[in-house]
């Protein structure tokens, strides 16, 4: 790798020696700081679901069915899939990658440890100087601010005499600001709290914060795929109510974005 490419990578990653972060400790509520962005996704999730759902049928030729099916026909198959009237695997064909910036570390751990069938890649506490880490808690008091600033002084103390970032993490609370990427398929998303939205987020701090992340996930997905955004809202809205809304959709009432994808023949 050329030296200038290494230099560029180091600048982007924030590991360049001249880019050492400045000491700071803002204490903030999660709602005000957390950002979720859709980083990558299946090219046409409706096509992926459709072809998976109709795999059962076909003769010896097993023709490509997407270009041969009418718009209304495709929509009926997608609606059946989203109303859980088909085999569930079709939803595994739809994959998303998200960036989740600035959540309390304990919420990342809760996410990674309590949701299955997804992958997580997060900021390393060994790999980065987190002297700039904010603290994300609600209902912050003056004493909280004082305690967390004093803890950051110990983080700084740990770094003296070439102390490592790894060792200094001993002084970070689980509410320090952490960021990550995760990938999850549609079946896994809708099963985040029980298969096919059979469960709900609990009334606990951690689960309510995780719900906040999934509401942002749904919003990001809805910007690209409105029907899927509606479907994912089953995670916190009434399941039957959302299914009824989906069942009532027709080619005349679906969004223009969804219609374009249902009509799209090329990849």
């Amino acid at each position, binding site marked *: 790798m050329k030296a200038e490419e*290494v230099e560029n990578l180091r600048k982007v990653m924030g590991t360049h020696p001249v880019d050492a972060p400045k000491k700071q400790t803002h204490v903030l509520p999660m709602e005000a700081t957390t950002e979720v962005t859709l980083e990558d996704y299946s090219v046409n999730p409706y096509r992926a679901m459709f072809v998976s759902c109709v795999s059962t049928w076909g003769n010896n030729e097993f023709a490509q069915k997407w270009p041969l099916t009418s718009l209304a026909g495709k929509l009926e198959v997608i609606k059946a899939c989203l109303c859980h009237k088909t085999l569930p695997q079709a939803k595994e064909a739809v994959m998303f990658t998200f960036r989740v910036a600035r959540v309390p570390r304990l919420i990342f751990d809760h996410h990674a440890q309590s949701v299955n069938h997804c992958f997580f890649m997060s900021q390393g506490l060994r790999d980065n100087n987190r002297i700039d880490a904010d603290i994300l808690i609600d209902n912050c008091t003056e004493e909280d601010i004082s305690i967390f600033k004093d803890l950051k002084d110990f983080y700084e103390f740990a770094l003296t005499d070439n102390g490592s970032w790894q060792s200094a993490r001993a002084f970070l609370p*689980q509410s320090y600001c952490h960021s990550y990427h995760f990938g999850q398929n549609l079946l896994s998303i809708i099963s985040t709290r029980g298969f096919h939205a059979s469960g709900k987020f609990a009334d606990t701090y951690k689960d309510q914060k995780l719900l906040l992340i999934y509401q942002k996930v749904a919003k990001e997905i809805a910007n690209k795929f409105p029907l899927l955004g509606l479907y994912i809202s089953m995670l916190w809205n009434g399941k039957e109510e959302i299914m009824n809304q989906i069942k009532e959709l027709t080619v005349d009432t679906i969004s223009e974005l969804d219609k374009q994808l249902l009509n799209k023949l090329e990849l």
Partner: protein
Amino acid sequence: MNIESAKAFYNGSIILKGAVALDVEILKFNDTKITYHVRNVPIHTFDQHARARLGVKFYDYRISELPVYSLYTEVFDKLIKNEEKLKAFFDLTIRLEERRNKADFRNEDIDSYNLMSRNCEYKVEQEYSSLKGQMMRRLKLCEEEQIVSLHWLLRQKMIDKGIKIAESFLPGCDITGECDYIAVSDYLSNCFGALFDACGRWDYDKSVYRSFNKSCTTPQLLKEQINIEIPLSKYEIENNLR
């Protein structure tokens, strides 16, 4: 304040050096899987360990009710050499504990006030096929000291129980016969300079820039803290090292 070589305590708060208090107990095992109980490790070690997802189940995770902290050896040594700082840290843990005890579970969660070094315990049920891969990574001394200690101690306890497969559990670098922390030229971290120095188990390029010019974990540390002698690598034997 009471200060011992590997422990200090004051007003209910306790700090421990590295992995000195680590305990791994094998609860049961058969031909395909093992169940073990890990005690006295910091939360960040559980977080690292619990990243394993295939063929493994973590349960009964409990964070210490008492303010007990397992600090990295480097940090522990630095604190006990500086009495003023040590006293200030103990005072801070007491303030932190008071705030933690006032936390409303529903609205703010007491975990927000746990340090990453606060002790915890948990149980693990794991298939050997899953454990073997995990051992290849976590027995390597380029990993952090508490997770490395945990895996060497588990390996030793398995051998003591007659679980034959554990004898084949070795650091991944022993399979390739080269240092895969620094010597592999296309490893992504090398784009940024290695974080730590290599442990010396295998030969490596000593010209690579290291952010911290020391090995993350050493055989000496494991011997001192969990009383386990790491077997020598072929390279160490041939070159009469250690």
